[in-house]
Structures are given as structure tokens and as C-alpha cells.
């Protein structure tokens, strides 16, 4: 009975949580949020699925093996740092692009860096939880 509720709830909660996590990631530079919390929330979404439908289902939705996702996150963060480096600035220097000259910039490598954090956190949390859930089966 409770499992049924969980299943139904998870099906609706999953996209909502994922959306919320992206929202947290996006607004994190200005309001409370950011890659860490975003990643944690997104991971929670997958954990919910794993608890309701089993780990394979969560893995299926994730496509990539979670630990690989984590490594990809580190790679993205490293690359974001390397952008400034290629442009002759010190490593991890933030590079920003404004929509039009004179306006305050909206897109920059720090955001890319935060995306790396986000991916990494999702991967890490899921790597732990999914493997452990599988292990207890």
C-alpha cells in the first residue's frame, strides 16, 4: 500500500524535483541555491525512483553510470577553469559574455563550473545510494 503511494508520488515528484534542481542551479549565483544543493536535490529525485521502482529503473533514467557522471562533472569544472587559462589568464579565471556590449554579463565560466559541481554531486550521491540499494537487495 505504502509502496503504491510511493510509486505514484515518485512518478510525479521526479520531474518536479529535477526541474526544481535546475532552478536551484540556475538561480544559485544570485539567490540561495547553486550546484551543490541543486545536485543534491536532483539526486534525491533519482533516489526516490530507486526506492519506489528499484535501482535499475533509476539507472535507466540516468543513462550514464553515476560514477562516470561524477567524473564528467569534474571534467566540466576543469574545462571551465581551463578556458581562462587558454586565454592567457590564470587558471580558473572567470570569463563572462554579455548579451550585448555595455550590459552586465549573464553567461560565464563560473556558471559552467557550477554545472560541473551539479553533475558531480548528482553522480556521487547516486553512485553511493544506487550501489548500496542494490547491495541490500
Amino acid at each position, binding site marked *: 500500500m505504502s509502496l503504491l503511494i510511493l510509486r505514484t508520488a515518485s512518478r510525479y515528484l521526479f520531474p518536479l524535483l529535477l526541474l526544481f534542481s535546475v532552478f536551484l542551479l540556475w538561480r544559485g*549565483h544570485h539567490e540561495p541555491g547553486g550546484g551543490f544543493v541543486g545536485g543534491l536535490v536532483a539526486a534525491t529525485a533519482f533516489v526516490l525512483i530507486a526506492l519506489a521502482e528499484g535501482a535499475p529503473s533509476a539507472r535507466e533514467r540516468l543513462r550514464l553510470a553515476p560514477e562516470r557522471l561524477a567524473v564528467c*562533472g569534474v571534467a566540466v569544472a576543469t574545462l571551465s577553469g581551463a578556458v581562462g587559462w587558454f586565454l592567457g589568464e590564470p587558471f580558473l579565471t572567470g570569463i563572462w559574455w554579455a548579451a550585448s556590449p555595455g550590459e552586465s554579463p549573464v553567461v560565464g565560466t563560473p556558471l559552467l563550473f557550477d554545472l560541473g559541481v551539479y553533475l558531480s554531486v548528482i553522480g*556521487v550521491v547516486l553512485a553511493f545510494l544506487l550501489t548500496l540499494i542494490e*547491495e541490500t537487495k
Partner: protein
Amino acid sequence: MHWVIPCLVAAGCLIPALGRWWNGRVPLIASAVPAAIAAVSIWQQSLLAAGEVVQFHAPWVPSAGIAWAFRLDPLGNLFVGLIAGIGTAVVAYSAAAYSGDARLPRLHGALFVFMAAMLGIATADDLVVLFLCWELTTVSSFLLVGFDHQTEAARVAARRALLVTATGGLALLTGFVAISVVAGTTSISTIVASGDLLRAHAAYPWILGCILAGAFAKSAQFPLHFWLPGAMKAPTPISAYLHSATMVKAGVFLLARFSPVLGGTDAWFAIFVGIGATTMVLGATAAVAQDDLKRLLAYSTLSVLGLLTLLLGLGTPIAARAFVVTWMAHALYKATLFLIAGNIDHATGTRSLTALRGLRGALPATAAAGIIAAVSMGGAPPLFGFLAKETAYEAVFEAPRWAGLLGSLTVASAVCLVFAALRSGVQPFWDSGRGATPVLRALPIPMQAAPVALGTLGLVAGMLVGPAERFWIAPAALAINQSAAPTGLSLWHGFTPILAASAATLALGALVFTNRARVVPWVGRFAPWVATGPSAIWDAGWRVLLQGARWQTSQLQNGSPRRYVATTLAAALAVIAVGLPWGTIVGAVHEIAPFEIVALAAGLLVMGGSLITLRAPTPLAAVAALGAVGVGVSLVFLVYSAPDLALTQLVVEVLTVVLFALVVRLLPRAKTQTMGSHRPSAIVLATIGGVLMAGLSLLASQPGLLEPTSAYFELNSVALAHGRNIVNVILVDFRSLDTLGEIVVLTVAALGAVSLLARRRATSTGGIAP
């Protein structure tokens, strides 16, 4: 001479690798190398005696003043001659004795390295170079004593010799460093010239003690003498070379070298004379009681080493002269006798003096050499040994203090040595009363020739006493004691008390020898103490040390992680407790920071949650309480203006609880689960820790003294980093390197966990053996 040393070391390292090739005639030819060195040394001695100085100097560690410095002076060159000359005989001898033995290359390898090291000791003009060579002799001696390492006895003897000489080596190193600190240089010739500075320095007693400990350990002075008889486990040619002629002389050579620097004080005189006389008497008496030929020679060597120390201690010019003569004479006759012992052992298979007799027929050349050497050792004319005894008597009888006592001790020891000479050099060949010992193996020519050659040298040196004095003895003695001794050594210098003493010594020695059936058992009653007493103390010391080591290890590293954590915590808390300013903390209690009802609830949640974990009935309940603590922490963050932290902490806590809940099923069942009492020590430590941390946080909540750097972030977050959430900007921009490191930590944790669990699964399905 400097370039010879590295060449010899290189040869020594290469020879073991040349195994098969080395086992032919090559080693015999190789003895030409030391022969050439000996020839050069003899040729150079006349130049050196004329006042010429041969030096070599190349920088090694210039910023510490250390150089590859070598300097040839008459004393050093005399040593070079002995090392190379006797080395020639030993290399040839061992090549013949171990011909065909697969271990010969290693023996020769170590021998060549050793020879290089000895040449270095004789010629070094820098403390570090000298020490380098010194340690090299320790190591090669260790390898050579343990040559027969298949037997436990050889290994034990090798280790003991190593530890005694290494102890000395470390003392010597300390002394050398101290000298270099006081004198401001490591150059020996400079140091030799600054004796007054050193003798007047407050550290002089320490320096003297260290140097003496090092030299005495090497030269087997009482009470560190016991390793030397033990070292007779080495092959006989090695004993001849290391343990009579050269290495054990390195100690007294070093002391002779440093006598212009450290000598001439009361302490020097007392220690040298005391230790030297003790070693001399004990060695001589113990020699009388020995049945093993090599051990007898070892103890008589001890006695002579004691005499040499005694002579150095006297500090008079004639004592320096006696030192040089005794030193040369002993090297020649004792090496000969060792090689003879080797021949006898090789030919008959025994070294027991009660079993050996009547060998002169079977081993005529060996017998001839034995008699020459024995005559020299006994101190009868016309051999060099006679001269040695005469000069030594002369020096001791005219000692500045205690002449009577020292004189009688010296004569008594000499009597014992006469006995030992007859017993080792004559008795095996003569006494054929009950039929000769059977000879099992023939001796190769080099084994016969080597002792004969060395013995003859002793004879020649005795005959040519004039040139010997002019070129070798007088210049070397001058290097030890800077005022010259009267010249005019000769085998005959009229009827003097010394001659009478000499004659009496010989007569008494012969008398003892004829009554050996009664004397030997009597002396034998206390001789074992000399052999085993100090060595038993030494061994007991090591035993106690090792037992103490085991005890402390079992106390500290006892395999209990609980104890490790407790000790680590206790140490850490002790350090913190010492450093906390309690006055400030007590003051901080009165200050009330902003007070919030929610914060009160949060604080109580944290406290209560932690307390509840202790009383939780099941592991899952404890996890729930842990979660409550986390929520409380999150609330604290929320109340005190850290929304990002609060959010993160909350989600992390949820995930932590899930993790714990999952893991609790996979862990081994906990017997002591959550209930039950805690150990009193844990409660004490926990209380102290709690109080300290509470104090520390009160202290931490005091406002800081200085404006924090974060003001920069507040001013520039929007303007330069284009973000309004300053915490996030710090994480992804201002301090993004920290965050990069952090996600690396996260990722590694995940990868590691996945790998471990995959291996666990493989193990449980039998894929990989545990």
C-alpha cells in the same frame, strides 16, 4: 694515492659480478695491484722523510667546507705501506686458499673495498672523508666476518662486530662533528694545527670521550674488546688482514693522528694509560689460556693493541717512537702467524693446540716462517720484534707517572706474549712426542710463500734498523709527537736495565712454557671472564633494550583501534587544554549574543539529538536521532543567516540517514549495539573533550581582532564576479579551486565506493580470492 682509492672501490664492487672469470689465475695476478701501491709507498717515504708534502684536494660539499682532501705524511704513508704490503700477501694467499671456491669473488670484492677504505683512513685529510672510509671498513668487516654466513655462529659474530664498531662509529661521528663545529673546519691538517683551541674549549671532554669511544671500539680496547675474538669466525686470511694488521690498527692510528690535537692533557693520559694497560694485561693473560690457535693470536693482538694505546697515552717522544716500532713489528709478525694458522688449518683440518704437533717435517716452509715470526713476537734479537720490545720498555720505564706499576705490567704481559709466541709459532712444529699431526691436504705454493715473505720482512727490518729509523720510524714518530726522539736505534746498545728486563722476559716466558701443563689450566680459570664478561654485559644490555622495545610496542601499538583513537584524542585534548586561555573564555560566558527562540530550539535539538543517540534502543533509532542533530544544525544555519548552508545541510542529512539506514543492514551484527555502559576512561575523555570544545567555541565566538578579508567579496561580488549570492560566488569563482578539490574528493569517494562494492560482490560470488 687519491685515485687509487676509487679504483679499488670500483674493482671491489665489480669483482663479485665477475664470478666465473675471477676464479681462474686472475686473482693471483691481481695481487700485483697492492704490490705496486706498496712499492710506490716505499719510494715516496724517502721524499716524505725529507719534508715533502703530497696533497690532493677537490671540492665535495664546498658550502659545508667538506672536500675530497688527501694528504700523505710519514705516519700515513707508513700505514699505506703496511696496508698494501700485507694486502699483497693476503690477496695472493686467499686466491690460492679459496681457489675454485664460488665465494672467492665476493671475498676478494670485499677485500678490495676494504683495502681502499684503509688507504683512505691512512691518507684522508678531511674528517668526512676519514669517516667515510672508517664506515666502509665497518661494513666490509661485517661482510667478511659473516663470510661463512650459512652458519649461525658467523652471523652472530658478524652482527656483534658490526654493532660494537657501529656504536664506536656513531660516537666518532659525533666527535668529528663537534670538532668541526669548534674548529670551524673539517680539514684535518688545519685541525691538527689548532690543538690549543680544542683543548681549551668547554666541549673538550665530550669531544675526547666521543673520539676515544670510536677509536677504542675499532681497536678492541677493554671493555669493547670482545668482538675481536668473536670475529675469528672470519676466514683466516681475513683475520690476518683485518683483525691483526690493519683494521684494528685504524683506531690507534686515528688516536695517533689526533694526539697533537687532543693529547697532552691529564684526562688523555689517565684514560689511555688505564684502558691501554687493562687491555694489555687481560689480553696477554687470556692468550695464555687459549687452545684455539686463532683465538690465541686474537688475544695476543688485544694485548699489543693495549700496549699501543698505553704508549700513546704516555705522550713522550720515546713513547711515540716505541709506538711506531711496535706497530710495524706487530703488523708483520702477527699477519705471518695468522697465515701460518691458516696453513695449519688448511693442511690438518684443526686449530686445536693440544692436537697440533710435529708438523715441521710436513710443512717445512711454514715452520720456518713460524719460527721467525715467533722469535719476533717473543722479542728476541735480531728481529724487529726485539727492537719493539726494547723501545717499549724504554718508554714505559721512563713514563712521566706510575712508571713502576706500568713497567711491571708491561713486562708481565710480555712474558705472556713470549709464551704465546712459543705456543703458536713453535710448538705445532716441534713437539713431536706422541707422533705428528697427520697432514690431509697439500699447501699451494702461494700459501707457503706469503708467510715466509712477511716473516722475512720482519727479519730484514730488524737488520736494517738504521735506514728503517731514518726513513720510517723517526719521521712517523715526529708526526705523532711534535718533539723528536733521540736518534740512534740499534739492536745492541750495551748492558742496560732494559736489556736485563728483555732477557728476564724471555727466560720467564720460556719457564712458563715448559710448565704450561700447570700454568694453562690455572690461568684458564679466570680467562673465560675476559672472554665472556663484558660481552655478556653487552648482550644483556641488548636483550634488555629489545625487551623494553617489545614492551613499549605492545603498550603503544597493541592492535586495538579503540586504544589508538583514545590515545590520539587524549594527546590532542591535552595540547588544547594547555593552550586555552580560560580567563577569556569565562569572560565570554557573560556576553549575550542575539537571542532567538528558534535558535534555542535548534540548539536544544542538536544537544538532545546527540544525547538520544546514546539511549536509542535500535541502530535505526540512533540514526534517526543523528538525523535530528543534523536538522538542528541546519536550523542553526537558517537562523544565523546562512540559507545556502541550511539547505545543503538539510538535504545532506536526509541522504546521510538513508545511507546509514542502508548500511546498517550490511554491517556485522553489533553485539553491544547502543545500550550498555561506557568505559569510565571514555566518559572522562568525553567530558574533558566536551568542556574543551565548548570553551573553544565560546572563544571562537568572540569577535575577531582584525577586519576580515571577506569585505572584499562583499564589495566586488556583483561588480566583478556578477553574482549576488556571495556564498555561491565564493564557491564558484573567488575560491573555485577549493570547490574543484572538493568535487574531486566527492568523485573519488564515489569511485572508490563503487570499486570496493564491486570487489565485494565478486568476492561473495567467488570471483576473486579474498
